[in-house]
């Protein structure tokens, strides 16, 4: 396990406060660059981190924060442009191993990835996909009579799953359980008996509530 990493956090008012606290608790060395004096003072008083008050877009501030020693740079600002610039400077100029960025506009995620940012996190995109997922089950559920005892569940196949590369007909499902849809790489596949299960597939299963647990366990293969 990697521990004692040097992590540089940049901007992001509340996010950086909580992240710094939690990462510091795990024994990492945290440096924070922020534009807000109060945040710097509060953090420096409550946890053992190095806080630098300044504009991270300025390379001399980054160097003052010893960016060259950092293992990970995390950009948390509300401005996508600022996050991109900091991560790019980290990757291209200082050759940091890992650059993580908040991407506020989901439309920019792909562009960030193309520019070598290792992890792009978009809050609105996460919530959006959550709602979509929620909706998939809901839209199937809408067709079921309210009194029926049938439930809908979504199961994602991990590398551990025992049913990988098996055809659906080969899987010993409990009676009355059925896979109604497979979400693969963002597209929906209507399954047939001969459809093979792949890693990262999302299987949407319909089953009586009593048999759902068993069916889900069968798919997860734990």
């Amino acid at each position, binding site marked *: 396990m990697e521990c004692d990493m040097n992590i540089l956090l940049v901007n992001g008012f509340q996010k950086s406060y909580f992240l710094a606290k939690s990462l510091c608790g795990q024994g990492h060395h945290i440096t924070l660059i922020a534009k807000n004096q109060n945040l710097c003072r509060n953090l420096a008083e409550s946890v053992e981190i190095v806080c630098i008050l300044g504009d991270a*877009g300025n*390379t001399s501030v980054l160097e003052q924060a010893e960016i060259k020693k950092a293992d990970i740079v995390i950009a948390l600002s509300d401005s996508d442009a600022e996050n*991109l610039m900091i991560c790019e400077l980290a990757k291209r100029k200082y050759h940091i191993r890992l650059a993580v960025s908040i991407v506020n506009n989901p*439309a920019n995620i792909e*562009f960030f990835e193309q*520019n070598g940012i290792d992890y792009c996190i978009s809050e609105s995109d996460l919530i959006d996909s959550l709602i979509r997922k929620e909706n998939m089950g809901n839209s199937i559920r809408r067709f079921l009579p309210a009194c029926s005892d049938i439930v809908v569940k979504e199961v994602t196949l991990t590398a551990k799953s025992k049913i990988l590369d098996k055809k659906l007909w080969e899987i010993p499902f409990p009676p009355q359980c059925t896979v109604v849809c497979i979400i693969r790489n963002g597209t929906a596949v209507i399954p047939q008996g001969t459809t093979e299960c792949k890693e990262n597939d999302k299987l949407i299963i319909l089953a009586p509530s009593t048999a759902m647990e068993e069916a889900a366990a069968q798919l997860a293969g734990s």
Partner: protein
Amino acid sequence: MGFFHGKPKEHIIVVGCGHFGFPLVRFLLEQNLRLTVIDSNSDAFMQVPVSLNGMMITGDGTDPDTLEAAGIFHADAVIAATNDDAVNIMIAQLAKQKYHVNTVIARMYDASKEKTYRELGVQMISPVMLFTNACLQMWNTVSNGV
């Protein structure tokens, strides 16, 4: 700059219409170029004379939707002239890498990042450096003259 005198009605997008962007916008409009101006603050367009024809778009210049509304797919040049280095760089990169615009120019305050971005094919102009160089040149001329 070649595109000022190129074939008529070249399409130029300018992002930022503040203290720096506005004189630039006025100059380009007077050159009878096809101009689209983007600024996040709609008040910025108040100062542009109505007699000059240009398309004004209120929006975030780092948002691909805004750039596409401004017609970036067919733009001949993009000039990022906001007062934020990071925003200018991101717009320039989007224009160059995502939309393959021919001429892309970004205004930079801080010249320390210049090398990193020049490698990406973004042309940068630092008004501070221009001013400094002009001052030095003047000073040299004066001191040589004495």
